[in-house]
């Protein structure tokens, strides 16, 4: 008796277990965030020359990095959902196209992709424009920030597709059967039953993708986007103090990633607790 359902019940009980201790106390890793911030403040105040100058110089780069990361990430969530659903489609064309997308994009380094979008893609568009005699396309100029976001979204969308796919597949078949047996369409079942549960499952890997995206956004510095990394290089070019510049830049990235990691953990625990 009960052989089929016991393991799944036991497993779901484990994942639903309320996490009481760590929530009640402060997550000790927050101290690391505090320490790194403290370190930056000490450097900037004790040795204002050059640290304060560097910080002022790269300030707008921080904003650009945050904007690019957040915008890309929101778009990645959408692209990834469609990619993941496409990978599970029973229609061969949709499955084929989404699989092709995932496989091709995952096989090319992000840096090469970004360079392609910035240097090769506009030329392709211009050639097509000349060919079809459309002035708007023939005179197409790449906007650095838009191109950077497109490059990041296309690449991370492919990774995210696989995360969505795995998340959806992790939901027991019985959930689909129960919703379909109530007369729901495939879409309604996905929208109201499967995706809401899958999203909880994929929250940790999705959070990791955000942090990875934040770090990889430094690659956009090669395509003329004045992000944190590029601003650091620009400061370097005139002041020649690599130790100070790159130490401060590294610490600034570290603050952002550590802070994001803490937020991800918080969200995870919260959704577990509320289940």
């Amino acid at each position: 008796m009960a052989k089929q359902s016991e393991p799944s019940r036991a497993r779901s009980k484990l994942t639903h277990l309320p996490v009481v201790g760590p929530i009640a106390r402060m997550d000790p890793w927050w101290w690391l965030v505090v320490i790194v911030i403290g370190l930056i403040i000490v450097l900037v105040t004790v040795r204002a020359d050059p640290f304060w100058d560097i910080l002022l110089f790269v300030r707008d780069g921080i904003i650009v990095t945050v904007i690019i990361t957040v915008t890309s990430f929101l778009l990645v969530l959408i692209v990834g959902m469609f990619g993941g659903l496409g990978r599970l489609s029973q229609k061969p064309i949709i499955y084929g196209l989404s699989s092709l997308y995932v496989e091709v994009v995952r096989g090319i380094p992000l840096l090469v992709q970004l360079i392609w979008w910035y240097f090769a893609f506009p030329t392709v568009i211009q050639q097509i424009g000349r060919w079809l005699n459309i002035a708007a396309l023939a005179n197409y100029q790449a906007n650095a920030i838009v191109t950077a976001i497109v490059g990041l979204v296309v690449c991370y969308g492919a990774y995210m597709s696989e995360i969505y796919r795995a998340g959806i597949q992790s939901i027991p078949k019985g959930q689909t059967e129960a919703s379909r047996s109530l007369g729901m369409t495939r879409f309604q079942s996905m929208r109201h039953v499967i995706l809401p549960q899958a999203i909880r499952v994929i929250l940790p890997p999705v959070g990791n993708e955000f942090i990875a995206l934040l770090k990889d956004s430094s690659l956009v510095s090669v395509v003329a986007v004045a992000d944190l990394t590029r601003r650091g290089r620009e400061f370097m070019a005139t002041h020649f103090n690599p130790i100070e510049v790159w130490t401060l830049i590294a610490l600034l990235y570290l603050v952002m990633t550590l802070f994001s990691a803490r937020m991800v953990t918080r969200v995870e625990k919260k959704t577990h607790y509320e289940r």
Partner: protein
Amino acid sequence: MEPIIHIENVHKRFGEVHALRGVSLDVYMGEVVVIIGPSGSGKSTLLRCINRLEEYDDGRIVVDSIPLDSAQDINAVRQEIGMVFQSFNLFDHLTVMGNLVLAQRVVRKRSSDEAQRVALDLLGKVGIPDKANAYPIQLSGGQQQRVAIARALAMNPKIMLFDEPTSALDPEMIKEVLDVMLALANDGMTMVVVSHEMGFARAAAKRIILMDEGQIIEEATPEKLFTSSSNERTQRFLSKVLQQ
């Protein structure tokens, strides 16, 4: 009288396994039919063919005058067929109320108020009116299965299918689920039940179907099956089940 479920010479293969070998069965409005048989005999597969959770390869099934193989909209047919699973399959991310309301809202297009009223009424009927705001994980197996029954009933189905509804339950919880099913049977619901609960079969079934190796080998009233079956395979199966 026209049967509400008409199954005619249905075959189903899973690769090499011939799960159903020409099954024919009629179920009439208001009837309770219990299907028994050893595991792997095809009884669950047959049940799942009735609402096309499983596609059959050959034969014909007509539910409520709609032939399943040519049904334009299988979802419309499924709205009329409630199904209760061995493993409950409640929606873990929703409260009990959410479980009962969801399909009423998105499939039956009922208003939120009406759906909640129906839900509360049914939760009363299955004996857990105070659990509306609990999550499935906070309920016992017996309570979860009663919620699952209420969720199916909320759609006002004409037929209820039960796929081993008590097999995943601890012994002390089996009765509370069977009592709900018995009340439902007494209310005149058309039910097809795959179960090994002989007590339930004896009390509720109009007919018992015994399946083995993908075929119906005997079909009889409970009294006849339990007391005077002449079929050798039936006797062998019954002696095993009743020993437990």
